[in-house]
């Protein structure tokens, strides 16, 4: 019995390794294998192919990171296709050093463009310099890095603070008689949390809105529900829930439902979320939530236009942030901008 179990386990382990191993090394190993051969033909290869196929190397974080990233990766895959005139190689990692190695390989492999969403902001100088020497044009997307502007063509990034401002401006425009806000924060210190908190914090400080509670649920839906429950139990008045992502807003709404508090358009409590998951937008469409903000994961199109036209408008392109109001949202918006399914 033990032996059989042992053999089974070993088989499972080996299979697991094969399965895991197949994805990641493929991106790094493939260029490696080509590297020695590539040296000679490299010089004329781009010339010959330049008109037909544009070779791009995409270094990104893995789609498993978040719904946002999954949408970002899907967007890249949708735009940089062979039908669109591209030959794209991709590499996904959460680790900066692995990303650096992959970027080096892409440069060695002779890509025309390197698209980069770095895991960390530091350490990219050397790689970008060698890219410049090799004539590889670099575009940053989604995330900025600490490097000289001359080292890349342009950066297409989100302005996190802008999302918060857009949302808070929307809230102010609702002209509620008073603002008693439950503010549920994401994981403290994350980009999204800082960006989405700042604008609301300013209102609290200015005294235009009253902070009923401000607490982190570290993106955890169940935790968000507990926070709202605790406010309900304390019998404090509140009329706005500002949750820094959709999941936490859903948790908060679950607490409202259990306590018999109405929410949504024209109801007791205004519910605000972020990310624009499709299911969340459907809640908006049903008028159970009021607002959903988005940090746009769609940068591929902008980069595609810049590559094709060869014109770069500015070094830093801020992608347009969306904010949806339940009163004006349409099914078409959900299909276009909604994340996930």
């Amino acid at each position, binding site marked *: 019995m*033990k032996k059989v*179990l*042992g053999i089974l*386990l070993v088989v*499972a382990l080996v299979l697991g390794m094969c399965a895991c191993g197949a994805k990641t090394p493929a991106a790094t190993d493939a260029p490696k294998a080509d590297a020695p051969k590539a040296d000679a033909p490299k010089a004329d290869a781009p010339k010959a192919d330049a008109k037909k196929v544009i070779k791009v190397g995409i270094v990104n974080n893995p*789609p*498993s990171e*978040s*719904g946002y990233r*999954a949408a970002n990766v899907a967007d890249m895959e949708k735009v940089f296709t062979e039908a669109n005139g591209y030959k794209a190689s991709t590499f996904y990692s959460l680790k900066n050093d692995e990303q650096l190695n992959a970027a080096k390989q892409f440069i060695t492999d002779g890509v025309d463009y390197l698209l980069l969403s770095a895991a960390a902001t530091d350490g990219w100088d050397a790689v970008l310099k060698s890219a410049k020497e090799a004539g590889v044009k670099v575009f940053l997307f989604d995330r900025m890095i600490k490097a000289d502007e001359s080292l890349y063509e342009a950066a297409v990034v989100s302005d996190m603070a802008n999302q918060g401002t857009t949302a808070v401006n929307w809230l102010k425009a609702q002209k509620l008689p008073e603002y008693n806000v439950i503010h549920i*924060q994401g994981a*403290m210190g994350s980009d999204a949390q800082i960006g989405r908190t700042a604008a609301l914090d300013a209102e609290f400080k200015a005294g235009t809105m009253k902070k009923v*509670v*401000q*607490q*982190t649920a*570290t*993106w*955890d*839906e*169940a935790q968000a*529900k*507990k*926070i709202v*429950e*605790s*406010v*309900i*139990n*304390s019998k404090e008045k509140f009329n706005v829930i500002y949750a820094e992502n959709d*999941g936490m807003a*859903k*948790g908060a709404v*679950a607490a*409202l*439902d*259990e*306590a*018999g*508090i*109405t929410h949504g358009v024209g109801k007791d409590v205004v519910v605000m979320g972020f990310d624009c*998951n499709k*299911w969340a937008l459907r809640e908006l469409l049903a008028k159970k939530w009021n607002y959903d903000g988005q940090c746009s994961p769609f940068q591929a199109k902008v980069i595609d236009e810049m590559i094709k036209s060869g014109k770069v408008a500015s070094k830093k392109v801020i992608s347009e942030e969306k904010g949806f109001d339940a009163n004006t949202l349409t099914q078409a918006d959900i299909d276009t901008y909604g*994340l*996930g*399914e």
Partner: protein
Amino acid sequence: MDKGLKKFSGSQLVVPLFALFLLIVFNLIRDVGFFSINIITNNDGNTVLSGNIISIINGASELAILAIGMTLVTSATKGQDISVGAAAAIAGSVFVSVLRGTQITLPIILGAFLACCIVAIIFGSFNGTLVAAFKIQPMIATLILFSAGRSIAYWINGGATPTVSSPLLVAIGGFIPGFPIPTPIIIMIMFVVLIWLVLKFTNLGLFTQVVGINEKSARLNGINTAWTKLLSFIILGVCVAISGVINVCRIGLINHETILIDIEMDAILAVAIGGNSLGGGKFNLTGSVIGAFIIQALTVTLYAMKVPSTAVKAYKAIVIIAIVIISSPIVKEYALQLRDKLLKKPTKIMEN
């Protein structure tokens, strides 16, 4: 009376009960109405109970269930399973993926629960086999699933955070229509009673403790030690499945990254606060369950006190350090000596 007091003050439940008592008194001083229970009508039109005490017991349901399984694993294997959160993510994902795309009915939910139970048991057995057959340290063995679990859940979900909605699921995660107590509390109580009956009418508890105290002599006495260890992981697997399902039903959504995140540490903490030795051997399930309530009561207290987000963990740590130090052997021994002095009885040391 003396005898009863002496027996009680020597019990491992003293510290956890005392800590819980302090938390309650602290909250009553802060706000007299803290534990008041209200009867309200929820948005589904049901009459339900609400209030902090309901929130605490309700919120601690998953933790209490996991703490029970964790106690058994701790007792039998002298180690802890740190993969319960990740395993719950897998179990929850399986539950949701069975439910999605079908008309949600009671038999389907039962089937989904069964499927997620089986998957959780398989992963529990994987951990258990590494520990029992390959004699790998439990924390190392479960580290594998701890790191891989949420990725597996991601793969099951296809990268999204799928939602499921049905009145039946609301009944599991919230309230059964016409019944004012949250269903998770009922599930937890049923599970506790079930485990209590199992421990009372089988020798599972005895065997588990014996294996934890002295594995060699247990084996020499004819106990299948490997099976006992494996069984503790299987039971924990069932606990994981139940907690995963409750958590999914609460919100109607599975997020593989956040579901029951860090629950493994809270579960281990509940076992420790309950006065159980993390070195295995003797255990007391009541202690672990009380430990779970203490952790939840602490969280709710901190929320009610409006502690700043950045400081929540620090406050929690301070209270936990205090509880752990008070229940440490050194302090305990000192306290027992003090008690004997106060009761004017010769101390143990003098007897020797």
